């Protein structure tokens, strides 16, 4: 999964409990590691992340 217009700030990476998110140039979310907790959605200062079926 990718996130459009991402600033690469790393906030989502820091709160992800499973290490599913990496930023090399852009954010990439590994769907296999993601447990859909929704913490990254909550954290993003620009509200850019949408996780399908998240518990938020």
């Amino acid at each position: 999964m990718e996130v459009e217009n991402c600033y690469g700030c790393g906030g989502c990476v820091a709160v992800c409990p499973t290490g599913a998110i990496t930023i090399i140039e852009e954010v990439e979310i590994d769907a296999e590691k993601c447990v859909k907790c929704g913490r990254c959605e909550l954290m993003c200062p620009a509200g850019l992340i949408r996780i399908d079926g998240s518990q938020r």
Partner: protein
Amino acid sequence: MKIEDEYDVVVVGAGPAGSMAARFAAEKAGVLVVDKHREIGSPKRCGEGLGIRTFSEFSIPVDRRFINQDIYGSVIYAPNGREVSIRYDEVMGYIIERKIFDKYLATEAVRAGAAVMAESYATLWMEDGKLKGIKLRRQGEELDIRSRIVIAADGVESQIARQMGLNTTVNPYDMDSCIEYEMCGIDYKDMDMLHIFLGNKIAPRGYVWIFPKDDDRANVGIGIAGDVGETAKYYLDKFIAEHQGLADGSILEVNVGSVPVGGFLENMVKDNLLVVGDAARQVNPIHGGGISEAMHAGRLAGTTVAKAVKEDNLGILGEYNEEWWSTKGLKLKKVLKVRNFTEKLDDEDLDYLATIWSGEDLMEITRGNHKTAFKKIVKHPKLLKWVKNFL
């Protein structure tokens, strides 16, 4: 520059923490610093406020190439608009140009003997549970670099420590979610002071800042608690729209960031890995500043590493932990305790405190010396009950 196959020390991240660590480690060791960004110092993700003490503590010259504005004090605005201000006769800090400042620190590391490589993304190289060095991705190539010691200075993401098995995951409650515009063509008073706006409608459990870079130019930003429903951008845009003098300003730069304000990584050394700066959550829990903290930790880690390499005894790396928690870390723990108090305050409490606290009281609180200020709370039953635990 040719990247070697092996170094004594690899530092991941060339922010203030990494560059300081590299500079001091390089006194006795062969050091490589890598950073994933194409340009060190950019994007800035920072209000760029730095106290004058940091300059003397690290013998940093007052160089106008990385200093934008002299700052004489601050004005704090309570939710009802009441101002608490403190102005000194002498300069008490600067608004710096982080892009140039961070490059200056990296330059100093190079001058001390370290090698620095931008546009290089690192992950830990582990074999059978042992740290071998790092794996580097740069311009489509992959390199394995062996090193005896790795310093994780990778900022808020803190994935290097995580790959080593340290738990650096932060709860959104304990993070500040930030956005900042560098604005120009603005008209605001006292452009030689920091302006801080408090209030749960303005910035829930955080604040809006105006940090002037010039008479008509400033970093205008916000940090709010990371678990709030609306975004930081929502609150900042609202604030700007409601403030004459800002609403018509131009936007030169947009930056987004997150600050781990709610607690520290307790154990920062595991085997031959040391964690410094934002990666170890070494941030002032009241105001979220972390440049000075990162530099302190970097110097301490770098010095410890230099000693370990010189004595050929990696068993002493734990001294970094001990030294930190008996000096700067100890102070920060006090500030964290005060945060546990301030984050409970509602607007009415903040308005009340603005009537009894002076600017000096607020400065002391951010330094972890809260007793004098807290003793002034006498006529407020609810706050009195909370404050009792702190005196």
